[in-house]
């Protein structure tokens, strides 16, 4: 399916997520920020798009832009939704900031037919090298935090995530990694390659 050109220029990982979503479906973006992805999905894929966002500025921006977004905490509020309420539940760049990532992923799979998760890969070769040579917690352009102020409290690798998905009995329908040039490649069976060269991974899951 062709995705129309995007005048807003959403982030490349958000574009990958958007491309995984069938038009006209029901979508919940858990942790939707200022609503870039939601707005794209609404305008270009005619999606019934909903969001949860914890920051006041984010929610105000979304609602002011005509998006349906609830101010709340993904960690506690997913349980309010009924089973299979959505076709897709998206969690982009947020799983590693959850206190109970496995619990959150379980809730996503309960309320959605599919879950889409994107996460930074802590086994990316530059981060491995950083830790090995400097002996300090890795920082990079996309991970600009010090160890003491990072919101990312549950870092994992692409391999870790694939293992968790297996443990939970979920099926990976599609998996991509983004290399340092921002080019997306299929993970498929080459988890080892993705785990070395992927800055982030994007997974489409189903029960």
């Amino acid at each position, binding site marked *: 399916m062709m995705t129309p050109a995007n005048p807003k220029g959403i982030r490349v990982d958000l574009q990958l997520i958007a491309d995984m979503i069938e038009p006209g479906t029901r979508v919940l973006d858990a942790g939707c920020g200022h609503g870039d992805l939601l707005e794209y999905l609404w305008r270009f894929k005619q999606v*019934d798009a909903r969001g949860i966002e914890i920051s006041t500025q984010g929610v*105000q921006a979304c*609602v002011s832009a005509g*998006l*349906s*977004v*609830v*101010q709340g905490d993904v960690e506690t509020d997913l349980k309010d939704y009924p089973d299979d309420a959505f076709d897709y539940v998206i969690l982009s760049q947020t799983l590693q900031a959850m206190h109970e990532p496995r619990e959150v992923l379980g809730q996503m799979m309960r309320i959605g037919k599919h879950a889409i998760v994107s996460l930074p890969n802590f086994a990316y070769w530059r981060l491995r090298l950083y830790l090995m040579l400097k002996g300090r917690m890795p920082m990079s352009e996309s991970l600009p935090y010090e160890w003491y102020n990072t919101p990312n409290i549950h870092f994992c690798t692409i391999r870790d995530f694939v293992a968790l998905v297996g443990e939970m009995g979920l099926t990976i329908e599609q998996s991509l990694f983004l290399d340092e040039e921002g080019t997306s490649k299929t993970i498929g069976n080459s988890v080892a390659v993705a785990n070395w060269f992927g800055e982030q991974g994007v997974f489409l899951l189903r029960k």
Partner: protein
Amino acid sequence: MTADDTPPAGSDLAYANGEWTLPGERVRLAKGAPLRLDSGVELHDVHVAYQTWGELNAEKSNAILVCHALTGDHYMVEDHPVTGKAGWWSQVVGPGRVIDTDRYFVICSNILGGCMGTTGPQDINPDTGKEWGLDFPVITIGDMVRAQKLLIDHLGIKSLFAVIGGSMGGMQVLEWACQFPDNVFAAIPIATAARHSAQNIAFNEVGRQAIMSDPDWCGGNYHAEGKRPHRGLAVARMAAHITYLSEAALTRKFGRNLQDRDAVTYGFDADFQVESYLRHQGSTFVDRFDANAYLYITRAMDYFDIAQRHGGHLSDAFTDTPVRFLVMSFTSDWLYPTRDNREIVHALNAGAANVSFVEIASDKGHDAFLLDEPEFHKVLEGFLEGCAEHRGLRRKSP
């Protein structure tokens, strides 16, 4: 004089020589089929006073109903005909404003049980020819909404683009969404709750007791006795007014400042500015409000509990609702705190309803929805804009 324009025996404000004198429209509804109240009583003749702004479009798809709060009325834009003060939502409703009357057809009606033209306890009971007084049936928020529905039907509007209201107005919004989900496109309950809490009931009871312990209340027959329970009603207003503010707002506005004096007087005059302010609030309120109406309306609020009608499950009230919701609360509102508003959101989420929720940072307390709060106005305007796009409402050409 026909039955249609019989003046309420005790109306102080609205009639002169038997003529309805206040601005706005006033229609007689429920003539054929009576309005059946939650109490089981049937009202056969209901007057509804209302005002409209803007123009209804050809498709009749741009109508917004604004529901007023306990002591509000339908004079929300122009200066109030009795007090001369600016309309209670004049900052929000008007040409080019948040609720743009160049674009939307805006309706606001006085609630059932009110005292500004819609049938209430100060009106004539058609069965007896005398003032209702305490014989007026106890009404509910649901009854108020059914009376509004009669008005909307009378105006020939099938589906309201939006129903908006704060505080008790928000309760009416929730009732609209529950009772008439197919007649409402968007619902915006603001600073409200799906049921009155023990604390809410407690404050209302203080107000009612203040009125009923005023000897001039005369068991509710004060009009016939030629008296007015002004002191009781003023005290009720003073107590309630405190709940509309916040400690921070009171401190900022008054602190411990003294009123026109340099030292305390060792007496019970209004030494402090805050006392003087509350006394002023109380004394001006009695000029525009009826004591029995205050009793009836606060009772309706206390009885409000949507979940109770749905086996205790609020979410069951909104299952599969097609209505788009925007719930808003204010951080310093302790009368209808964010917690109460969030309960509504949780219930709507449980029904997978289309809901937005924003908590607005403000130190102005419950009354923030009536005041100049730019973030609040921005969110409200943006939400309406988004809904208009979803409903395919075209912008009025310039």
